[in-house]
């Protein structure tokens, strides 16, 4: 196991199971793109190609596929599927976007969650998909067009001081902040994920995360929902960010219903205690559901 993860021994129950799970490679999953196909048709096409594709127990539109190359199949060519890690489908599920609403995806590239949100909205209403990184934005555009998304507007700005002016949008119904992070939870698919890890990076990135989440809360209507997610275990990037935003903005963390086994957010780390409501956030460890590591919290604005 990577030595960085030793710092989580005090907060992860069954640490040995955690450490063992992190070492195992991650199985391939694909999300069925319901804008262009349905689960039955995708499974039939995979079966025709001799590839096993079984729905996961907790998300019928997420198929576990027995191939290393789902991209070189007819369902992929037709834009019926998107290769997406299981935990990456959780933030849109927590966000629960509805057809016709206006949604902000603040850190959207390369677009897995943007396109999932668009599909959940039946490609109706508006997804404003933003990313600061122009290179990653081209991947988002490619994915959105391949998957047949027509309700997205793509912008290339700094989410921290995002302006709604040119969009014909006064405020968003919901917003997703799937924040840039240290990526500790992605070790199973990318063993080099922590090669450049440092405590200094945690401090820098948590500042960005806090600013983007604050902007998302300001830009979302009263009573609207904002989901904050990362693919890291570091409390500096998770509960500490929520704690700061609870102090600064008119919002609260609410209970969320996620379809997999999770652990509550932690209220103490490294001598600092956080607002008790951070317990309503969800920590997802690899050994709980055989996935990558993840963190999700749902906030309600102005309530």
């Amino acid at each position, binding site marked *: 196991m990577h030595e960085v993860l030793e710092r989580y021994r005090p907060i992860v129950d069954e640490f040995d199971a955690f450490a063992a799970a992190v070492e195992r490679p991650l199985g391939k999953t694909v999300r069925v793109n319901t804008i262009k196909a349905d689960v039955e048709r995708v499974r039939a*096409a995979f079966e025709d190609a001799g590839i096993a594709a079984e729905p996961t127990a907790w998300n019928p539109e997420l198929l576990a596929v027995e191939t290393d190359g789902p991209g070189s199949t007819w369902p992929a060519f*037709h834009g019926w599927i998107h290769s997406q890690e299981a935990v990456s489908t959780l933030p849109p599920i927590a966000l629960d976007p509805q057809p016709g609403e206006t949604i902000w995806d603040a850190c959207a590239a390369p677009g897995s969650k943007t396109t999932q949100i668009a599909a959940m909205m039946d490609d*109706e209403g508006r997804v404003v998909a933003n990313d600061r990184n122009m290179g990653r934005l081209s991947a988002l555009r490619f994915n959105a067009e391949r998957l*047949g998304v027509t309700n997205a507007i793509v*912008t290339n700005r700094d989410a921290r001081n995002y302006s709604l002016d*040119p*969009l014909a949008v006064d405020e968003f119904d919901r917003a997703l902040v799937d924040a840039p992070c240290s990526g500790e939870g992605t070790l199973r698919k990318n063993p080099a994920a922590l090669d450049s890890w440092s405590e200094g990076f945690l401090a820098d990135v948590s500042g960005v995360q806090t600013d983007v989440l604050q902007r998302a809360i300001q830009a979302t209507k009263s009573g609207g929902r904002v989901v904050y997610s990362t693919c890291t275990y570091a409390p500096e990037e998770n509960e500490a960010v929520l704690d700061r935003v609870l102090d600064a903005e008119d919002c609260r963390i609410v209970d969320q219903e996620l379809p997999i086994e999770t652990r509550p957010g932690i209220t103490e780390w490294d001598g600092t205690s956080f607002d008790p409501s951070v317990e309503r956030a969800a920590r997802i460890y690899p050994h709980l559901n055989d996935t990558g590591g993840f963190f999700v919290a749902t906030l309600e604005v102005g309530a």
Partner: protein
Amino acid sequence: MSDDDLAENVSHRFDRLAPTDAERTVEGRPSRAAVLAWWEERFGIPPATFENHTFWEKGNGKLWVLAGEAADPSEVEAIGATVLRTRQEHWKPTTDAVQRFGHLATQNVIDLELAEAERFAAGEDQEIERWDGDWGYLIAAHELPREEGDDADGERAILGVGLYVHGELRSTVPKGRRRDL
């Protein structure tokens, strides 16, 4: 109004198509009505398909389709998806647009056998003598099973856009979308 009286297209900005040819203000830019008529005349795709979509031009003849409205998308990178290129004699639909809307087509669809579909997806041109319909841009399709099981019926699945001339079907699948299947 003749084209001589119209303003020139500004290539880096998204501009909404005028509803009809008579209401156009930019030289060479097609109207929404013309775009809807083209999809219907070429492929039999009903205009109602796009009743909740708006059409935009950015770049010379590059049209985009967006679900719903947008007030002033001048400073954005993309709105919806690219749909059609119009500043040439024959309008050319995009692979992404026909994969999204092409299942509604009733004409100018060429159904390919498996080996032909694989060559098409790889971006290869091929001789196909049996086609006796129109030349020009066609929607290429093949059959995939609709349900699991050995005796399941097939259903048309849209591959992309082919250019048919002189007995040859040229694949226009963009490099990034080509696959060796």
